[in-house]
C-alpha cells in the first residue's frame, strides 16, 4: 500500500486530517475529537493496523501532542497518528478498547503529562505514588515529563 | 568388639543395683531424655552442614568453608546467631499458639525416636506395635504446622499451612501402604522383629520387585511428608516466601528448621530399618568370610550408614528437581502413588501367602 493510498483512505475517514511525509513514516495529525473514530477505522477497515507499538505524548510548551505509532502484522506498514491537545485541559478519548496495550501506556501518559483519557476503565497512577508529594502546588499539577515541571529536591541541574 | 548393647546393660544393672527400682527407672528416663536432646542437637548440626555441602557440590560450589576446618563449625555459628536474634511475634498473632507450634513440631520428632533401633538391642522402647505407632505419631506434625500457619496471622503462612495439611494427610496413605508391605512380609509390627527377620538378607533384596516398588513409594511419600523439595509446597520459597514459618525468627525458626532435619533423619531411619535391615550387616548367601568381615563392623555404624545414604538420596532429590504445583502434588498421590501402592500391597500379600520370598 503506498502512502497515497493510505492518505486517500484516511481522508475518507477523517476529512480534517493533515499529512506530513518528511519523516520516516507517514505522519497524520487529526483533531482530538476525531481521534477515536479514526483509530477504530484504522484498526478494523482495510488497513488492519492491529499493532500499537508506541503511545506517548510530547510537550511542545504551547500544546501537548499525543503520538500513536501504528503498524500491522500483515502488511508491516507503519503510520504515525498525532493529535494536538490543550495544555490546560488535556483530554482525549482512550483507545484501550481497540488495543489492550494502550491501557498501561495511557496510564503512564496520564500521570506523566496529565492527559485525561475519557472512558478509560482504570485511570490511576501507575508508576508514581498515588498522592502527590507534600508541599507541592496542587493547582499546577504534578506532571513530571512536562517541560515546566520543577522539583528542587530530586532534580539537579548541572 | 565395641558394642552399645554392653553399655546399656551395664548402666541398667548398675542403676538397679544402687537404687530402688522406681528411682532407677526415673534416672533411666532422665538419661534417655538427655541423650535424645543431645542427639537432636548433634543431628541438627550435622545434617544442616551435610545439606549445605551436598547442595554446594551439586551446584559446582564449595559450600561453607570458613568457620573451622572445611566449614565444620558453620552450623554452630549459625545456631549461635539464631539464639541471639530477637524472636519477633507479630502484633495480631495468636501468641499462645504461635509460641506453641514449634514445640509441637519438635515434640513429634522426639516421640518418633522412641521405637527406632539405633544398634543391636539399643532401643528406647521396643513397643510391639512399633510401625503403627510411628505412622500415627508422625501424622501429628501437621497439627504443629497448621498451628503455626494459623497463629501467624499472615496470608502466606495460612496458605502454606493449608497446603501442608492437604499434602501430609494424603501422603500418609502411600507411606503407610509402603510400610505395610514390609509388615505383610514380616508378619509383625514390632521393629525389632522386622530387623531380626532380615538376618539372612534385607527386605529390599528378599522381597522381589514389590519391595523395590514399596521402597520407591516410601521415599517419595516421606519426601512429601517432611515437606522437602520437590514437595516443599508448604514453604515454596518462590511462591509463599517461606510458607508457614514466614513470621518466625530467631530460636522459634531454628526449632522449625531443626524439626525438618530431625524428621528427615527419622523417616530415613525407619526406611533403613524396614528395607535395609536396620543395624543388620550385609550378608551375602554362603560367603562365610565376607559375612564374617561384615559382622566386625559395629551395628550402629551399619544403621547410621544406611540412614545417611537415604538422607543423601532425599537431598539429591531436592537439589535436582523443580517443585510441583499443589494440584499436581495431589494428583500424583491419588492417581499414581495410591493405586500403585494398593496394587503392590496385593502383590506382596500373594507373595507372602505363597511363600515366594526368600
Amino acid at each position, binding site marked *: 500500500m503506498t502512502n497515497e493510498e493510505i492518505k486517500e483512505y484516511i481522508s475518507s475517514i477523517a476529512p480534517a486530517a493533515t499529512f506530513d511525509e518528511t519523516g520516516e513514516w507517514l505522519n497524520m495529525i487529526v483533531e482530538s475529537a476525531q481521534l477515536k473514530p479514526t483509530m477504530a477505522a484504522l484498526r478494523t477497515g482495510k488497513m488492519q493496523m492491529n499493532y500499537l507499538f508506541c503511545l506517548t505524548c510530547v510537550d511542545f510548551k504551547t500544546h501537548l501532542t499525543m503520538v500513536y505509532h501504528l503498524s500491522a502484522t500483515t502488511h508491516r506498514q507503519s503510520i504515525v497518528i498525532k493529535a494536538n491537545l490543550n495544555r490546560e485541559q488535556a483530554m482525549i478519548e482512550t483507545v484501550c478498547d481497540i488495543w489492550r496495550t494502550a491501557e498501561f501506556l495511557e496510564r503512564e501518559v496520564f500521570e506523566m503529562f496529565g492527559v485525561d483519557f475519557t472512558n478509560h476503565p482504570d485511570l490511576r497512577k501507575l508508576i508514581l505514588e498515588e498522592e502527590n508529594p507534600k508541599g507541592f502546588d496542587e493547582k499546577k499539577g504534578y506532571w513530571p515529563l512536562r517541560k515546566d515541571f520543577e522539583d528542587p529536591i530530586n532534580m*539537579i541541574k*548541572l | 568388639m565395641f558394642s552399645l548393647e554392653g553399655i546399656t546393660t551395664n548402666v541398667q544393672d548398675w542403676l538397679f543395683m544402687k537404687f530402688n527400682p522406681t528411682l532407677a527407672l526415673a534416672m533411666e528416663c532422665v538419661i534417655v531424655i538427655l541423650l535424645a536432646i543431645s542427639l537432636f542437637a548433634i543431628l541438627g548440626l550435622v545434617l544442616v552442614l551435610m545439606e549445605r555441602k*551436598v547442595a554446594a*557440590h*551439586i*551446584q*559446582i*560450589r*564449595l559450600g561453607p*568453608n570458613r568457620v573451622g576446618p572445611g566449614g565444620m563449625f558453620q552450623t554452630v555459628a549459625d545456631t549461635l546467631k539464631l539464639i541471639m536474634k530477637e524472636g519477633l511475634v507479630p502484633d495480631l498473632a495468636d501468641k499462645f499458639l504461635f509460641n506453641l507450634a514449634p514445640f509441637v513440631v519438635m515434640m513429634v520428632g522426639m516421640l518418633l525416636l522412641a521405637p527406632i533401633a539405633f544398634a543391636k538391642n539399643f532401643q528406647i522402647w521396643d513397643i510391639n506395635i512399633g510401625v503403627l505407632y510411628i505412622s500415627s505419631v508422625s501424622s501429628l506434625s501437621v497439627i504443629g504446622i497448621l498451628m503455626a500457619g494459623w497463629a501467624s496471622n499472615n496470608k502466606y503462612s495460612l496458605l502454606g499451612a493449608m497446603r501442608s495439611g492437604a499434602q501430609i494427610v494424603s501422603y500418609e496413605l502411600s507411606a503407610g501402604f509402603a510400610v505395610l508391605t514390609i509388615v505383610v512380609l514380616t508378619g509383625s509390627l514390632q521393629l525389632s522383629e522386622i530387623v531380626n527377620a532380615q538376618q539372612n538378607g534385607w527386605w529390599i533384596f528378599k522381597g522381589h520387585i514389590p519391595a523395590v516398588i514399596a521402597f520407591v513409594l516410601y521415599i517419595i511419600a516421606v519426601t512429601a511428608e517432611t515437606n522437602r523439595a520437590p514437595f516443599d509446597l508448604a514453604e515454596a520459597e518462590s511462591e509463599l516466601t517461606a510458607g508457614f514459618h514466614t513470621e518466625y525468627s530467631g530460636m522459634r525458626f531454628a526449632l522449625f528448621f531443626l524439626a525438618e532435619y530431625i524428621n528427615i533423619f527419622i523417616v530415613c531411619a525407619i526406611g533403613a530399618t524396614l528395607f535395609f535391615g536396620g543395624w543388620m550387616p550385609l550378608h551375602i548367601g554362603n560367603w562365610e568370610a565376607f559375612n564374617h568381615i561384615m559382622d566386625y563392623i559395629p551395628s550402629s555404624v551399619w544403621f547410621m550408614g544406611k540412614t545417611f545414604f537415604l538422607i543423601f538420596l532425599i537431598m*539429591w*532429590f531436592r*537439589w*535436582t*528437581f523443580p517443585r510441583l504445583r499443589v494440584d499436581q502434588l495431589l494428583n500424583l498421590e491419588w492417581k*499414581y502413588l495410591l493405586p*500403585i501402592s494398593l496394587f503392590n500391597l496385593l502383590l506382596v500379600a500373594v507373595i507372602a501367602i505363597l511363600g515366594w520370598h526368600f
Partner: protein
Amino acid sequence: MFLKDYISDVVNGVSSLLKGMRKTGYYFTHPKEIITEQYPDNRATLLLSERFKGEVVMPHDANNEHTCTGCTACELACPNGTIKVVTKFEVSPEGKKKKAIDALVYRLELCTMCNLCIVACPSDAIKMAPNFEHSVFDRTKLTKVLNQPGSKIREGIE
C-alpha cells in the same frame, strides 16, 4: 490401552527424573568442576582485565608530572558532574602566564564508569584503572583529588 498409557507415563516420568539426577550426581562426584573463586584469599592471583573500568585515575611519572592541561573537556563530557576541574594560572620563569590545573576533583560516588571523560581527554591525562574495592566507611573519602600534591604538567604538553 489406558493401562498402557498409564504405565508409559510413569516410566517416562521416572526416567526423565533419573536423567536429571545422573547429571547432578555427576557434578557431585566430580569436584574438579567446581568453579568457586575464593575471593578475599585469591587477591594475589585475581586477574582483572586491563580495560576494566573501575575508577578514574591520573597517571603520574617519576618526576611527579602529569599531562593534564586543565582544558575541562572531561568535565564537559561527564553526564553526571562527576569531574570538577579547578584551574589556576601559573607564572613561568619568563613571566608568561599559563593555565594549569589546581585540582581535578573526582567524585567516585557519582561516577557511572561510562568512560566518556577518557575518550574526551585530548592529552590522555586520565585513564580508567581496574580497581573495584572502593568501599569506605566515610562517604567523603570517595571525593578524590586526582593530581598528586606538588605535581605539575609535563614539559611540551599544550
